[in-house]
């Protein structure tokens, strides 16, 4: 009896198992060194199938999200002839970095309902909280606009290359001003805009070497760090003076 139930359960499992994503990354972590100027990560993978290729348009969506941090968006208005910050809206959580790469136009590979549930596109990711400001929407739009200009938010439609309906790859350019933390890479496999499979992995981004040491010292031994900064300043000031008086002789 028990076996029969198990068998029935197995058979009734969703079609999800038909296609499965296997992913590789060009690097498992991003190290911020003294000469760090940004990094490019290559995400590549394959679609594993146990059955013949199903019907429906194949789509791949790759997202990379940085750690979420709250942000305050302020708007200037003219008061008494000068421009001052008047209204502000606090965005509860917005990723410090976000990139969405798709294999075709977003509207073709993702249904809006799926986007709403899985929070894939940039507007879905930037949540805002209710405030007493009437048009709080324009504040979250401003956040997206400013971050897109800085390449912190990237919309890369058609940037995922699919070959032979099985292999896919995309490159994502990470800017130099990365926030430390775990960056979550998600890959969605869609058929006719419906998500069939999902894969998730995280890429740690961290300072290493001298950068790490200085950062830790500044936070753990702040007094010592302050004294060290002053000592360097005094030494440099004295050094320059000594060198210059040598020149004069």
């Amino acid at each position, binding site marked *: 009896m028990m076996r029969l139930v198990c068998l029935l359960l197995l058979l009734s499992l969703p079609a999800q198992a038909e296609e499965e994503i296997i992913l590789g990354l060009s690097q498992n972590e991003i190290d*911020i*060194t*003294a*000469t*760090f*100027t*940004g990094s490019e990560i290559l995400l590549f993978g394959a679609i594993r199938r146990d059955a013949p290729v199903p019907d429906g348009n194949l789509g791949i969506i790759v997202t990379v999200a940085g750690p979420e*941090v*709250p*942000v*305050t*968006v*302020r*708007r*200037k*208005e*003219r008061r008494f*002839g*000068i*421009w*001052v*910050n008047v209204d*502000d809206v*606090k965005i509860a959580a917005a990723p410090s970095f976000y990139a969405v790469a798709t294999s075709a136009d977003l509207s073709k590979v993702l249904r809006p309902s799926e986007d709403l549930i899985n929070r894939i596109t940039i507007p879905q990711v930037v949540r805002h909280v209710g405030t007493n400001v009437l048009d709080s929407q324009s504040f979250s739009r*401003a*956040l997206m*606009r*400013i*971050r897109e200009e800085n390449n912190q938010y990237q919309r890369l439609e058609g940037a995922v290359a699919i070959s032979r309906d099985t292999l896919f790859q995309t490159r994502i350019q990470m800017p*130099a*001003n*990365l*926030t*430390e933390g775990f960056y979550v890479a998600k890959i969605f496999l869609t058929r006719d805009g419906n998500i069939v499979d999902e894969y998730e992995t995280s890429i740690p981004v961290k*300072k290493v070497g*001298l*950068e790490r040491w*200085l*950062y830790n010292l*500044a*936070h753990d031994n*702040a*007094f010592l*760090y*302050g*004294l*060290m*900064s*002053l000592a*360097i*300043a*005094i030494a*440099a*000031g*004295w*050094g*320059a*003076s000594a060198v*210059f*008086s040598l020149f004069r002789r």
Partner: protein
Amino acid sequence: MQIYLPIAEVSVNAFLLLGLGGIVGVLSGMFGVGGGFLMTPLLFFIGIPPAVAVATEANQIVASSFSGVLAHLKRKTVDLRMGTVLLIGGLVGAALGVIVFNYLRSLGQVDLLVKLCYVVFLGIIGGLMFIESWNAIRKSKKSGGRSPARRKHTWLHNLPFKMKFRVSGLYISVIPPLIVGVLVGILAAIMGVGGGFIMVPAMIYLLGMPTKVVVGTSLFQIIFVTAFTTMLHATTNFTVDIVLAVLLLVGGVIGAQIGTRIGVKMKAEQLRIWLAVMVLAVCIKLGLDLLIQPIELYSLGEGGH
């Protein structure tokens, strides 16, 4: 060459920072100003977070002022006694200023107040100094000689606790320098600068010190005030970026040495008029920022408030 700054968490061009440090250093050595009121806005402009820019700038000023003071000490153009009196006032003022600053922050709009402070003070000081030194230059051209000493006997000279300031050639009460120190300290703490650009004119016009001595004395006082500020920022906000500071101060200390040499060769009136022009330029720039509609009305801030 790009360098990643560990505390500011941005990547910047090292040569750009060296150059900026150098230019501000020259001005610092010439005029006896720390240069913070020029450098801090420049750092904002190249994308350094404001909190880091203000804190690191304080550290850099320590270096360039120290370098400048050594050069002035050799020429015996530092009034150590006057500097110490001003410093005592300055530290008291800085402590008061921090209290005022925190009170303003609790009211919100502290950014605006800081900017208005800049515009008003830079405008008044720059304007007055420009007019005064312009007249002095015209007068000296007309008569061909030195302008007469403008030392008058005012109520300032009737105050008690008189002290001899030999280097400055003054015999005045310690009360006016102390008050000047306190006021400058308050403003310096609110505006996040060393305060040299307020201190220098105050010493010339309020205390009647000779211009040549003023620069070295101002630098002497600034070292201690900014060292105090650096420690305060480093221990409470963790915003001093040592890599940024080193890049700025390498340029800064060299610039300060060059600036001091230029300053000694220039006439006092010329020195004052150029400082006035510089102060007015920064004032106009900041004023226009407030008056002209910005291209991007929205700005992003850290989560907190």
